[in-house]
């Protein structure tokens, strides 16, 4: 297992290098640069800006400088937030995004798996239909609509929570719900589908016919075996939640890193783009690694040759 993890970490470095190169290239191939705006700047000013930020150097020099900086842990500077380095921006924003993301993830996991299993065990009863209804609603209403509805109902009308911001526990409830809605729906349905399949396996019939208590059958046999697909999607979902949702962070004005990626691309903020892309790629590669390890834990029959 240790060898497996080490090998994967080495691969991770390769993956990050490839992603960084692709991103760097795309960034410079895409039309428009950081200084383009509706009120065009004077050519001397543009030349001065390019010189100031090293954008007048050839491509490979710029990429090389970036890699060198990376070795020193320096992710570069941001044009949109000029008083801090990209590393500082990520360090300041990430804890907030991570807390929100983890809360939403736990919420989605708890609610999703519970309802999914309940729906499967009581297939075609009211609980199953309620599960279908809610999961469909949360999947067909986009995050910003759900977010503003929550704000209108719980802030403006009921005055239970502030409309946004970050710092006190009351400000985490609504964004966590808005963020958890779709993953919860997805996990509920996947859990249900997977549980239904597991329930029909022969070994479950065998367990039941042996006279085991329903609860024992549930925990020892059904739960474990139906979790494989849930774990598969949980990994990327966790990575996505923890690196932030641009929609929820925008609506609830949460100063995290979720908005930074999209904002950076639209502003052609090269430093910010590289920093956030690498960060996200790193988190998701680790998440996929954890998922693969969990496969082996859940189902000992799974082996990686």
């Amino acid at each position, binding site marked *: 297992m240790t060898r497996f993890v080490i090998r994967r970490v080495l691969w991770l470095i390769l993956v990050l290098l490839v992603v960084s190169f692709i991103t760097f290239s*795309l960034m410079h191939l895409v*039309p428009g640069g950081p200084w383009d705006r509706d009120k065009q700047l004077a050519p001397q000013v543009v030349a001065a800006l390019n010189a100031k930020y090293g954008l007048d150097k050839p491509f490979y020099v710029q990429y090389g400088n970036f890699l060198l900086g990376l070795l020193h842990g320096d992710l570069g500077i941001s044009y949109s937030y000029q008083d801090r380095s990209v590393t500082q921006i990520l360090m300041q924003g990430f804890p907030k995004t991570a807390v929100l993301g983890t809360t939403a993830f736990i919420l989605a996991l708890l609610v999703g798996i519970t309802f999914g299993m309940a729906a499967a065990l009581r297939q075609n009863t009211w609980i199953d239909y309620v599960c279908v209804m809610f999961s469909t609603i949360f*999947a067909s209403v986009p995050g910003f*609509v759900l977010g503003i509805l929550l704000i209108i109902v719980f802030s403006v009308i009921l005055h239970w929570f502030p409309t946004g911001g970050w710092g006190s526990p009351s400000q985490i409830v609504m964004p966590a719900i808005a963020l958890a809605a779709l993953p919860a729906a997805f996990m509920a349905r996947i859990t249900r*589908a997977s549980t239904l*399949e597991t329930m029909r396996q022969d070994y479950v019939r065998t367990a039941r016919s042996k006279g085991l208590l329903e609860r024992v059958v549930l925990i020892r046999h059904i739960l474990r075996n139906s979790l494989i697909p849930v774990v598969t999607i949980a990994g990327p979902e966790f990575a996505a939640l923890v690196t932030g949702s641009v929609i929820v962070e925008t609506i609830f004005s949460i100063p995290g890193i979720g908005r930074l990626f999209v904002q950076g691309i639209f502003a052609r903020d090269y430093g910010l783009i590289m920093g956030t892309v690498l960060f996200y790629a790193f988190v998701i590669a680790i998440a996929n690694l954890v998922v693969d390890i969990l496969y082996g834990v859940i189902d000992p029959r*799974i082996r*990686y040759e």
Partner: protein
Amino acid sequence: MVSSTNTTIVNERPHHTLWGDAWIRLRRNKLAMAGGIFIIVLTLAAIFAPLITPYSFAHQDLNAILENPSSKHWLGTDGLGRDVFARLLYGARTSLAVGIFAQLIVIGIGLPIGAVAGYAGGRLDNALMRFVDVMYGFPDLLLVILLKAILGGGIYQLFLAIGLVAWVNIARLIRGQILAIKSREFVSAAHAMGGMGPYITWRHLLPNSLGPIIVSITFNIPRAIFTEAALSFIGIGVRPPTPSWGTMISDGYAVIFASWYQVFFPALAIALLMIAFTFLGDGLRDALDPKMRR
């Protein structure tokens, strides 16, 4: 002894193929049939929209801005005085196309990659999954902006944009399923009987892993519709005034304080479509499940 030529053997199981049997069972599932019929009716309504509504999706009646539903405009009008029902109906064309056809591309790429990775294991699995890792970390937004700059923005570019990136989740899902099922007894049995890799995958592994995959496909429908709305923001896909449910929702969101109908009706349409596919998908999975053969 009774001659076998002139006695009917009762209670003999009718001989069906897996798929034929599945079709019969599907037909019996009322919810699944309801879902299927809804989809067919919606598709026909979208195609024959001009026969259903007298309004064009583009005609602006500037004296009738943001009106509530009435007998004249069944679902009201939008910010430029266009009939919402008409836009919903014509918008179904785009959204159905995106929701369904984009899926085909996503499945077409993701399914083989995931299946091969899961079944083959070892180095091939590792290589493919690292490729998937790169795709996960890939900045799709940048690629899409570049795509528009080079290829222009039309509906084919839209399918390309969605298909190129959205297949990773399905690939990993299928791979996971196959890894789990690979080591089960019936697979060894099929193997022992002389079955080869692709045959085993197609005949045995896939039908048994369908449940979560069908769910993933169902969820990809609204996801594709919203992606289409996001991409039209950059100029890829259908251009205004051609409506789509996703853009109707994002346009409606901007004026939600003036009229919540703008968001409600397209969201309802997406929800109904998704429910229809959910029931159909569930029914399909039940129908194909060998364990449920009577």
